[in-house]
């Protein structure tokens, strides 16, 4: 039938078309790859930033990008980690009598050319307080009053002394009043103003930083251009002459680290802004085009216990477990050596606040010695066994049937860990811990659980025995120490997940929160660390090292810092070669 003939012809036409397309693709691709701008830094991101709305940006990908645009008043020096003025012109002046901080602001401009004034700073603070912006609210709700005597001066009056004001509040990114006033007004009209603001889609943020957004192709890339109005251009801050010297940054989105690393090796990107998995390191190290940076992180990975119920309401058991846990094994095997031993809750990289002389459980002991020591602790605390893990002759055997001091057998308990896909290291740690505890006859079961469900159990319902969690990016201010263990935070969705309750600790912690003297505060923080490690509601496990890879020969001037080379200083100082 003729109509079938037509179909047939169309069919063969299709073939010709397909072949034609294929050849065009190949030729087209050759043309494409030749054209690329030399002065644009290309970075690989693992995930796409979720939003450019600074108040919503809670994931690290968004924060990486947003951080290049919204700038705070003070930033950390890469070497000393001390706070130095950034948008501010000089260190803040504190008047103890009135509890008033006075901040002078540099002459600076927004990316739309308007001037950045004290009004913007005051607006930001008032905005946060008015709308109760999560994550920032707690840093500003103790500010009583804000005054702007002139365009360059802001005065903050506090309700009470707060140690975190400079290090946490004054590092809040400042937004432009002009941009947000309108949005705020609209939000006020709705029933749920905060929701409205957080759901606001900011297409092109008004930036005070070194870069402005030029284009965002969702699912493809983000292109940030150099901000002509950046205040730092040509200035010397902390002895560093700021650029930016590059014309822009392109963030390319790769879903997986292997794709990013292949691209890095191929030269399609100049840097992969994410920690490199140990598996890649050998290979990359051998690659002459790749340079690796190794930096410490301000991170904490730990095992936590539920102190609200048996068996972990007994500090002796927790101490025994702390003795049993072989952090060296974890670092050597699971982290492949790319990690630092944690002794305290505060990572050693945060040198000022880190307390070096906390108790060190089981340090330097081998497995057998650890078991003997833990056995000793428990035996002394009144624990008994059907088959003790250390027999009469002092030989280590597999323990069985452990009983609590009150004579009841210890029930099975679970170690909740995030699933392997979320973090293989933590899942593996749980697995190993289970094995170690069982040697002592402790019936531990490691149970990886979806992250959301895990947090629900631990943080909201408090229905758990123990867990392995971590923070990849802790603030350098140690206030979290108070947050994690103060008894007032022991409630639903509160940060005291262990249910640690120690009036002595609470007292010191509160004191530390309002200690305005840095050295005095340091003493208190050290004291707190000693108490916590003595009671071990958390066993700190490790602080992974951050390995980052960049391509040699394209840009120079990476600034190494706690938390990696992808910091504001690098972006301001990178120079094309």
């Amino acid at each position, binding site marked *: 039938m003729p109509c*079938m*003939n037509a179909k047939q012809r169309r069919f063969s036409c*299709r073939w010709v078309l*397909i072949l034609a397309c*294929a050849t*065009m*693709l*190949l030729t087209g*691709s050759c043309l*494409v*790859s030749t*054209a*690329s701008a030399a002065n644009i830094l*290309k970075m690989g991101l693992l995930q*796409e930033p*979720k939003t450019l709305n600074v108040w*919503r940006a*809670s*994931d690290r990908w968004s924060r990486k990008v947003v951080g290049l645009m919204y700038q705070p008043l003070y930033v950390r020096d890469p070497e000393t980690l001390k706070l130095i003025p950034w948008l501010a012109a000089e260190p803040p002046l504190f008047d103890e009598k009135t509890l008033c901080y006075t901040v002078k602001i540099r002459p600076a401009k927004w990316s739309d050319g308007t001037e950045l004034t004290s009004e913007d700073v005051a607006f930001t603070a008032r905005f946060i307080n008015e709308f*109760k912006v*999560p*994550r920032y*609210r*707690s840093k500003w709700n103790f500010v009583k009053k804000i005054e702007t005597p002139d365009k360059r001066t802001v005065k903050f009056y506090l309700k009470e002394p707060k140690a975190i004001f400079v290090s946490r509040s004054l590092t809040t990114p400042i937004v432009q009043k002009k941009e947000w006033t309108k949005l705020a007004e609209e939000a006020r009209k709705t029933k*749920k103003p*905060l*929701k409205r603001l*957080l*759901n606001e889609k900011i297409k092109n943020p008004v930036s005070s930083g070194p870069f402005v957004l030029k*284009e965002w192709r*969702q*699912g*493809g*890339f983000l292109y940030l251009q150099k901000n002509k109005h950046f205040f730092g251009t040509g200035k010397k801050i902390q002895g560093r002459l700021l650029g930016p010297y590059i014309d822009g940054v392109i963030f*390319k*989105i*790769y*879903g*997986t680290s292997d*794709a990013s690393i*292949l*691209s890095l090796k*191929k030269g399609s990107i100049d840097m992969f802004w994410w920690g490199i998995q140990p598996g890649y390191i050998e290979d990359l190290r051998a690659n002459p085009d790749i340079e690796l940076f190794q930096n410490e992180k301000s991170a904490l990975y730990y095992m936590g216990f539920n102190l609200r119920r048996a068996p972990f309401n007994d500090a002796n058991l927790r101490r025994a477990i702390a003795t049993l846990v072989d952090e060296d094994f974890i670092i050597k095997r699971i982290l492949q050596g790319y990690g630092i031993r944690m002794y305290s809750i505060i990572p050693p990289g945060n040198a000022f606040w880190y307390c070096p002389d906390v108790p060190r459980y089981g340090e330097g002991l081998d497995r057998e010695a650890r078991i003997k020591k833990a056995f000793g602790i428990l035996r002394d605390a009144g624990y008994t066994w059907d088959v003790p893990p250390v027999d009469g002759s002092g030989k280590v055997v597999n323990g069985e049937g452990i009983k609590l001091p009150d004579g009841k057998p210890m029930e099975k308990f679970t170690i909740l860990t995030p699933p392997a*896909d*979320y973090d293989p290291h933590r899942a593996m740690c749980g697995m190993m811990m289970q094995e170690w505890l069982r040697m002592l006859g402790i019936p531990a079961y490691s149970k990886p659980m*979806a*992250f*959301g*469900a*895990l*947090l*629900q*159990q631990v*943080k*909201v319902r408090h229905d758990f025995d123990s867990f392995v969690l971590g923070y990849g990016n802790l*603030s350098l201010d140690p206030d979290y120490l108070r*947050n994690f263990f103060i008894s007032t935070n022991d*409630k639903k969705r*509160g*940060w005291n997940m262990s249910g640690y309750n120690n009036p002595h600790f609470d007292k010191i912690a509160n004191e530390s929160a309002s200690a305005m003297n840095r050295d005095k505060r340091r003493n208190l923080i050290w004291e707190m660390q000693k108490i916590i490690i003595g009671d071990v509601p958390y066993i700190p496990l490790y602080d992974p090292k951050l390995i980052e890879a960049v391509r040699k020969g394209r840009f120079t001037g990476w600034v190494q810092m706690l938390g990696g080379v992808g910091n504001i200083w690098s972006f301001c100082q990178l120079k094309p070669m």
Partner: protein
Amino acid sequence: MELRRYIVRRMIQVIIIFFLILTVLFLLFRLAPGDPVSMMVDPDMTQEDAEILIVQLGLDQPIGVQYLIYLKNFFTGHFGFSFHYGEPVVDIIWNRLPNTILLFTTSIILSALVGVFLGKIASWHKGKKTDSLMTIGALVTHTLFLPWLALILIWIFAYKFGWFPINGMISEEVWLDPEAGFIAKALDVMYHMVLPLFTLFLIHFGAYLLIMRSSMLETLKEDYILTARAKGLTEKVIRDHHAAPNAALPVVTSVGLSLAFSINGGALTETVFTWPGIGRELVSSVSQNDYPLALACFLMIAGVVLVSNLVVDVLYAYLDPRIRY
């Protein structure tokens, strides 16, 4: 007339099923442990913050109220806001859907065409080398483990030979080039599409080949083929005009039935190739407890499958005059 009635009836069924799925999924998500607020592990996120957010996101409402609100939003073309992106879910879906449709329909059409064509050839040479080669080839490619295949293809073609991009959908060079016109951009997308398309194609064409082959063998035994031969038609005409169109009918049905199955493969492909489509979005939103987004993505997929099944059935009725409803 009858056909139209049939379509109406099927559409009503589709709508009922769709709302059943919607309800079940909604309940599942809301009854599940874990909420988006507790996912925020930033130590700066205080308990008060969390409570404020929960009220703001409407998670404090009773589940029935939430469901009604969701239904109301649904009918006004609104799927709520993504917890994660903070954008209207509709926007995200509209952004991702074209990408998925592009990759998915191209792959289905391509593999169906090639599969049918090769299946025809294979059945025509039944029992010969061509046939066994094609059958075994189809079986082998069809049973390859998709993500693994994708990784191997990336390794060989994108990394070792460097012929194709490793992943993604567009390259910034082209899209930032002010001189690049529509054709250059389209070519760029197609260039990125080659490997994912090839992966899906390899997995799917075998199934169509095998179906076409057996259906064709079945058809060739029919009496009307004998009639055609007796009429003195050439073998090619018999094969292409009498046997193939009849034999291709079951392939149409199988495209519809295997759609849900193919979508699994689509999601995996999108994930491995970082193709910004619905499937990948679903996988990532699921792991981030972004219910509104996950729910909408899933509904979208279920809706697409339901509707395309309907379309396939109608198409089948249209193609096969024997079937009149």
